């Protein structure tokens, strides 16, 4: 009896979470898959099995261009979060002396993550606008005659906003893997005459690759379906696949939106799998 209870207990304990995720994550995504084959007659959707929604996506120039633009955002955001995130994580783990300070400065980087994304984006408006602080300073200093228009409501602004919002997702895993590097390995490499650059290239970089991979997965998945930043920072100009789906939902074209979402999911999944092929992240989990 007691043994049976011990065997059943973990299942009972895990059930609420399994139900919550099943009901609000798995079931809805399965439904997206089902609805993506349904028909849409201009007003409502009807159960059917048609590939029209998918054919529509792959034959539409607009959709394909939107995908390309989304990849551009993903690529640029990934590049800049890595270029900013790595040195920050490196500084924290190798140059800040005490653990207490390392944790404190790391927390300083994470605090904005717990605050509102919307507010964080709105905060850029008074800086980047036509009348914004940056333009005032540039014109005032005589660096430009006209206020720069591309600072806000442009692809530049979108990437800036995305990097600002998500860079912590790159810093945290890299910081984590840098902190795990056995410091004696570095001393050993130095003792054997390795220069600072080669210590970094031969020891530190390979050992932090899993952190980079995890950070990259976060960035790809976060940016792939992004539509809020694209809308707020890009104005009406910028396009992304997430925004396209949002527009389709707005006009109740659920089957088309669903087909787009399935393609988006497949693409995202493919990218994640290829990252996992390149780098073994199991050591980090």
């Amino acid at each position, binding site marked *: 009896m007691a043994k049976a209870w011990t065997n059943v207990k973990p299942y009972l304990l895990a059930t609420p979470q399994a139900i919550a995720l099943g009901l609000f994550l798995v079931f809805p995504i399965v439904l997206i898959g089902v609805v993506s084959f349904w028909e849409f007659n201009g007003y409502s959707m009807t159960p059917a099995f048609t590939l029209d929604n998918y054919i529509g996506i792959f034959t539409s120039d607009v959709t394909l261009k939107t995908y390309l633009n989304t990849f551009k955002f993903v690529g640029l955001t990934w590049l800049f979060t890595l270029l900013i995130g790595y040195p920050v994580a490196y500084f924290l783990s190798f140059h800040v002396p005490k653990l207490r300070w390392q944790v404190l400065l790391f927390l300083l980087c994470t605090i904005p993550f717990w605050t509102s994304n919307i507010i964080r984006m*709105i905060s850029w408006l008074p800086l980047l606008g036509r009348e914004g602080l940056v333009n005032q300073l540039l014109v005032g200093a005589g660096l430009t005659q006209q206020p720069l228009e591309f600072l806000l409501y442009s692809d530049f602004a979108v990437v800036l906003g995305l990097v600002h919002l998500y860079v912590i997702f790159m810093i945290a895993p890299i910081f984590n893997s840098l902190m795990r590097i056995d410091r004696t390995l570095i001393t050993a490499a130095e003792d054997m005459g390795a220069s600072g650059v080669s210590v970094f290239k031969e020891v530190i970089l390979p050992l932090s690759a899993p952190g980079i991979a995890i950070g990259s997965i976060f960035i790809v998945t976060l940016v792939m379906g*992004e539509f809020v930043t694209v809308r707020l920072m890009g104005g009406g100009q910028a396009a992304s696949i997430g925004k396209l789906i949002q527009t389709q939902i707005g006009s109740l074209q659920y089957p088309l939106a669903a087909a787009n979402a399935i393609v988006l999911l497949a693409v995202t999944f493919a990218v994640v799998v290829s990252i996992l092929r390149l780098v073994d992240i199991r050591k980090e989990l």
Partner: protein
Amino acid sequence: MKKRSLSFYLLAVFFGLFIIFLYGPMITIFILSLQGPDGTLTFPVRSFGIYWLGQVFQEQRVGNFVEPFLRSLVLGGIVTILVASMSVSAAMAFRQRFRGSTALFYLSIASLIVPSILVSLGLGVMFQVMQWPTRWYSSGLGAHLTWTLPIAFLIMLGIFNRFNPSYEEAARDLGASDSNTFLEIVLPLIAPSLIGVSLLTFTLSYDEFTRTSLVSGQYNTLPLEIFGMTTNVTSPALYALGTLTTLFSFSLIAVAYTLYRRLSKQRLSK
């Protein structure tokens, strides 16, 4: 201590610039929200005052903040209670091996990294197909759970990883039942962390936007109301609201941190 190298100074400057990049924009809206009645959306600041902070609580031409704020508080409270109990329970389950544990673990990770538009669309489709109306307390609640539950769960896993099981074993050897062991041994020991996790869950829910955006139904939560305002508000009241809600989040994080520190110190000194 080693002599500091050039790279230290370069990286320190880089880090400083990064912190400015991270917090700078936030500080500009703090400043712009502290303007007098003649304030505008851009610099220069003509006069300082707290006029706009007060305006937030007045009836607005476009939208009203008080009700969405209350809604967000209630929703955050429900989410926090659900997430705290579910994540503790699931993390306790994970202290043993059981069939399906790997699947549930990866499902939680997937919930975190699935593009958020899919969650929103999926819930929208589900409620559409079921012919249920979308509401902040039903579909909105579901959207919040997909985001907050896995985060809390992963933190709780880490906490139970460092948890010493010998106290529980001792309690059980002395004849305590499972529920007694949990209430009198496990819960007090994880309480500081649990409070911290709960407050962080609350802030995540309070600030959640993307996943809820398409499924909140007729009545907006606060972030949705703010988003709606960005397109048509032309006064610093928007910044004032941003300042207030950010300060609210900051204070929750600060309370979470202090509680955690104080309670874990108490435990050490006992």
